[in-house]
């Protein structure tokens, strides 16, 4: 394992007017870890996710990816560096087919401003898109419009799109939000497999779900880092119990 953490957050804060959504959070992630950021409603999870994924720049502090300062770079630069994300609210290209969704995502590495060569000539991209669809179990839905897929399938499609840029770091904002119990199990299994090959950080509301899945949990509360530890340590932590029970 390399000495430089894959992602490092240094004293990051985010204000919305006077409201401190995130205050002075410092945390670093080693390559290959599967980490979950948890916390009750309003703990600053989404803000934290936005700060590390380029949704909003931090008001103060720094974000480093493999030692390189990425604070405040444009959202599209993230994918090019190898940081992919899946959103809390499903974000797919609804009127394009499932296959085209993945193909567009893949195409970014090969060509962005090619105007005159037909895209049907890029055979390799078409095949790789099929392979990625198969990986998330959507090969049967290849030609369906993304908007016509079931909710869980759309989430899986989004994961396939995130994988398209061959990310070293995969960020997921509540990957199982709004899913049925069956869909949740499928997604958890998918995350487990994905985490074998790359670093995954996910933000989650359901504590139970991540307990059995992650090596490390980080608990946020009122925009501050409350506890950072293994699932075992978190389970037995009095502070965490108080926060979760207190909030209901």
């Amino acid at each position, binding site marked *: 394992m390399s000495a430089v953490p894959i992602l490092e957050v240094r004293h990051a804060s985010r204000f919305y007017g006077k409201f401190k959504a995130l205050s002075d959070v410092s945390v670093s992630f080693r390559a290959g870890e599967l980490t979950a950021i948890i916390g009750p409603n309003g703990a600053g999870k989404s803000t934290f996710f936005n700060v590390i994924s380029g949704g909003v720049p931090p008001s103060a502090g720094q974000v480093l990816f493999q030692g390189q300062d990425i604070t405040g770079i*444009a*959202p*599209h*630069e*993230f*994918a*090019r560096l190898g940081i*992919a*994300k899946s*959103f809390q609210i499903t*974000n*797919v*290209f*609804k*009127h*394009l087919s499932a296959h*085209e969704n993945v*193909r*567009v*995502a893949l*195409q*970014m*590495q*090969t*060509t*962005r*401003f*090619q*105007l*005159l*060569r*037909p*895209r*049907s000539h*890029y055979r390799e991209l078409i095949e790789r898109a099929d392979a990625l669809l198969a990986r998330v179990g959507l090969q049967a839905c290849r030609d369906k419009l993304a908007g016509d897929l079931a909710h869980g399938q759309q989430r899986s499609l989004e994961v396939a*799109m*995130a994988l*398209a*840029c061959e990310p070293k770091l995969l960020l997921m904002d509540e990957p199982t939000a709004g899913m049925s119990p069956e869909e949740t199990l499928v997604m958890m299994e998918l995350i487990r497999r994905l985490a074998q090959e790359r670093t995954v950080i996910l933000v989650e509301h359901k504590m139970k779900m991540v307990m059995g899945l992650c090596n490390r949990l980080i608990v946020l509360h009122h925009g501050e880092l409350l506890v950072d530890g293994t699932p075992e340590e978190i389970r037995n932590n009095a502070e965490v119990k108080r926060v979760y029970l207190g909030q209901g």
Partner: protein
Amino acid sequence: MNKTLISFLTLARQHRVASALLFLLVFPFLMPYDALSVNILIFGLYAVGFNLLFGYTGMLSFGHAAFLGVGSYLAGIAVVHAGWPWWAAILAGVASSALVGLVIGFLAIRTRGIYFSMVTLALGQIVYYAFYKADHWTGGENGLRGVKVEFIELPGLSINFIDPLNKYYVIYVFVALALWFLSRVLSSPFGAVIEAIRENEKRAAACGYDVARAKLLVFVLSAGICGLAGTLRALHLSIVPIDSLHYLQSGQAVMMCLLGGMGTFFGPFVGAAVFLYLEDVITNLTRYWMGVVGLVFMVFVLFFPKGIWGTLLHQLERWQRRQGGAA
């Protein structure tokens, strides 16, 4: 659905440029008079250029008259004041529209949705007043008169450009080139990027696409195509009316696109043809043409939001899905 209609639509889909060009080749013989066909050809191109931005990228501009008008005026000025040959006038017109597109686009793409529409409208109006005031060059209120091109001189060939049918086919060549170019762009990887931006800008950025740059490029391409339509119109009319830059002209592009079917290849052409044909027929019957336009517009927005061509293609897709399901 009717069998012939199905095979016609399927063919039109698979070979969109070829079938569009074949149709436009015989089009003058279906119209009551040639000047109307020329008009439809030019405004069809204008609507097609607008559709690249509106239908394919999802950006509703209310200032596209600026590009039609700048193309017309600069081609006209090149002929009238500089005495340039017709081909140089066309180049000048297209290049200037693309340049104006670059400036307006650069400012407007910072905004989204209704704000984008308002910014393009405002900047379009600035262009209108600039040309209105520069009457030494543009003829101001009276328009620019005397854009005379009587012969299209080619090596070893001289075409009489006064003859309306000749005029149609000369313009047809340019429209054909533009449609071919557009079709290439739409089926290119970049074509996929702009559709992705229309569908979901946030996701397109997360995929690694520089949304602002892609939008600017498509804006300039759209402006250039509308500018080409403008230059051809100046040569066709031999005059550039100041109305070319008026916001009503911008509205016409929106109207034609919605009527024919936005985001479809041939839809804007269908829209332009129906719009101008109706205008021609109805203005002969009543003074209240604009009232009829309003009614037609409402009917389409309420009942056929996909437009004429879009609705036909939609029916075709449904039919194909049923066939696929049965097989």
